[in-house]
């Protein structure tokens, strides 16, 4: 029960941040995907930069409840491509369409309904592809830490510094 309440409250903050930060804005999303307005990539880069260091600091104290997704290379790569096409076409992603609906955007509602249909279509296809999906080039829950054999905190420090450096000092806000 406590977990449900925590989930709900974290979700509330997540939704509010996405709305306030302009992540439900088509102008911002397509601006970033067209490499003109770097707002979204800067927002995401900052979040990932802060999150990476924080999670691996937690991990040092054994406090990080990690959830590493398995690397079945072809399925993940192909899924990423299909996802990316949908992202550019709709201007939302699965999380921002939920927030878009909450602020009354009807195109976000169309994306949400399309998403429910897309997830259902995947469940129809799944039985036929399950075996080949997870048995081909599936390396399991590997991380940069396990692959490189370098302690995660050092990698996290490097990635965080690199990302935050790029986002704050290298990328301009807008490009023509």
């Amino acid at each position, binding site marked *: 029960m406590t977990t449900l*309440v925590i989930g709900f409250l974290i979700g509330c903050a997540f939704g509010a941040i*996405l709305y306030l*930060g302009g992540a439900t804005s088509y102008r911002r999303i397509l601006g970033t995907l067209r490499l003109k307005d770097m707002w979204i990539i800067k927002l995401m880069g900052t979040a990932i930069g802060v999150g990476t260091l*924080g999670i691996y600091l937690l991990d040092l104290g054994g406090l990080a409840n990690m*959830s590493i997704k398995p690397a079945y290379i072809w399925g993940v790569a192909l899924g*990423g491509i299909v996802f990316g096409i949908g992202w550019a076409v709709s201007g939302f992603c*699965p999380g921002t369409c939920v927030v878009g609906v909450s602020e009354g955007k009807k195109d976000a509602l*169309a994306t949400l309904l399309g998403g429910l249909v897309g997830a259902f279509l995947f*469940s129809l296809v799944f*039985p036929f592809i399950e075996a080949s999906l997870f048995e081909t080039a599936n390396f399991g829950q590997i991380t940069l830490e396990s692959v490189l054999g370098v302690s995660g905190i050092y990698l996290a420090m490097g990635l965080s510094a690199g990302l935050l450096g790029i986002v704050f000092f290298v990328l301009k806000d807008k490009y023509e």
Partner: protein
Amino acid sequence: MQDFTTNLTMNGVLMERDYIISWKAAGISLGLLLILATALVKPLGVSTQFVVSDAAVVHKVAPEFAESNAYLSKYGNKTDWGVGYGWMLVLGMFVGGGIASTLLRKRQPEQDKGSMPAMWKQRFGDSMIKRYAAAFGGGALLLFGARLAGGCTSGHMISGVPQLAISSFIFAVTGFGAAILMAKFLYRSSSES
């Protein structure tokens, strides 16, 4: 629009901000929220809950089919619909987004309001049907792809990359790569910036 805003700022007449909170504020808050979620329960994720929702409906409408489907039956059953931390998180996103937009709508830039983005209109015309159809089709591709890959922007990019997961690096590169190419294709003949 940007020139217009810049001019106003330069002349010192009035400043029309084209955001509510900056990407820095939003990015840092989101990073901290991710750390909190990882410490308390687990990292953020959204796309699984589309299946959980589908499974709940299908279990209600066509229980036998739901039980027999290898994917839907993983996410909830007749008595337990699989509504847990993850689903409550997405419900929270709806509530939190709704509260924030109700309280701060007047601070939201005009161009970010409504269901017909100006950039879209300029390129594809003012047909709402066309916009909704693209949003619907795009949504279907989004979730089909996310389920194939095992996560979306939240689970793979925002949460997976910070855990240094190889699968999430692959998803971030292919997802952004395909989206950038598709956006370029969609706006290929557009000079608007």
